[in-house]
């Protein structure tokens, strides 16, 4: 199962410092995201990804190996973002 961003346009995402503001054109809502959630969203905007592949890319972006703990954190963030209708399963 893959995850993808509901708002696929990078035009709807702004990064200031280590905080993201994301506009979801489908819901009309705007969200404030932390750095990790914002980067996950941007990765999913590039292409739908399996959780495992997403975590690999994030480990590469962040230059650290997170292991199962990171996998769990990312899965939890994905669920939170799913509740906000920012990402969906495909």
């Amino acid at each position, binding site marked *: 199962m893959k995850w993808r961003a509901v708002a696929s346009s990078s*035009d*709807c995402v*702004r990064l*200031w*410092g280590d*905080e*993201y*503001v994301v*506009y979801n*054109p489908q819901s*009309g809502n*705007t969200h*404030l995201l932390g750095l990790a959630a914002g980067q996950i969203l941007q990765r999913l905007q590039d292409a739908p990804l399996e959780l495992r592949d997403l975590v690999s890319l994030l480990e590469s972006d962040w230059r650290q190996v997170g292991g199962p703990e990171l996998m769990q954190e990312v899965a939890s963030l994905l669920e939170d973002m799913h509740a906000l209708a920012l990402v969906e399963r495909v």
Partner: protein
Amino acid sequence: MKLSALSRSELSLRLRHGLPLRTGAFTFRVKTCIPSVAHGLSLLYADYPLAAEEFSDFHVTLASPPTLRRWFKSQVTFRFDGMAPFAPLPYTQAFPMLEWGLNWCVSNHANNYLIIHAAVVEKNGYAAILPAPPGSGKSTLCAALTLRGWRLLSDELTLIRLSDGLIEPLPRPISLKNASIGVIKRFAPAAVFSPEVRDTVKGTVAHMKPGADSVRRAALPARAAWIVFPKYEAGAPSVLDTVTPARAFMRLADNAFNYSLLGQQGFHTLAGVMDGTAAYDFTYSVLDEAIQVFDALPVPA
């Protein structure tokens, strides 16, 4: 031609048929026979230009409802393009009702702007937006700033043009409530106020006449440089704390009348504002100190 060119009797006569008053980008055609409205207009709008007769953005009428109440607890109704969007108010509240009604006209219809519930003032080409909930001292601080060299763009509605992100001035009388009226009267004894009106939904209200220079330069837009969320706290020192752009964005969006309505356009317009501004929380209690802080705000790169 300015409103001050009309004698009291000419003003009353013109108001009976509809007076086309120009305030910033908008023309309001005000029609009324109520003396307190004519008095308020002559006092506070003396420097405003009268528009050409042909077109008005908003047609508003203030009148007593034609009911028996006219003879007992007399009331006033605000009508916009023939409709009455609000319940009638006591007759004594006619002038504040005009002011509230004019704000309503703009905030509900001018969707070629992102409209934020915020005061906005300008100095040396840089504008400071002051969004805040009621009771935060926003209008008091705005009034004080305009009495010390800042240009009033608006004390209530910050209009950000969707086309270029500049702020469209809408300089109208500054609405003050309760203790703030006395604070500003003591701060600037020469300031001109409308008569105080008691027992409104906001308590006692009075409106302060904006400076002639703010009215004269009403066609000159400004670029936002600062977003300052003011908070009055009795006895508190003046303290300016940085707010991150993302958090300021969310708070501004919450304070906007039409952010959701504008959708992605609202998002981009607000993002553009955040790119060029610095944002702060500002706690204050002494107006002179607060003005010093504003005068020393660093110009964003």
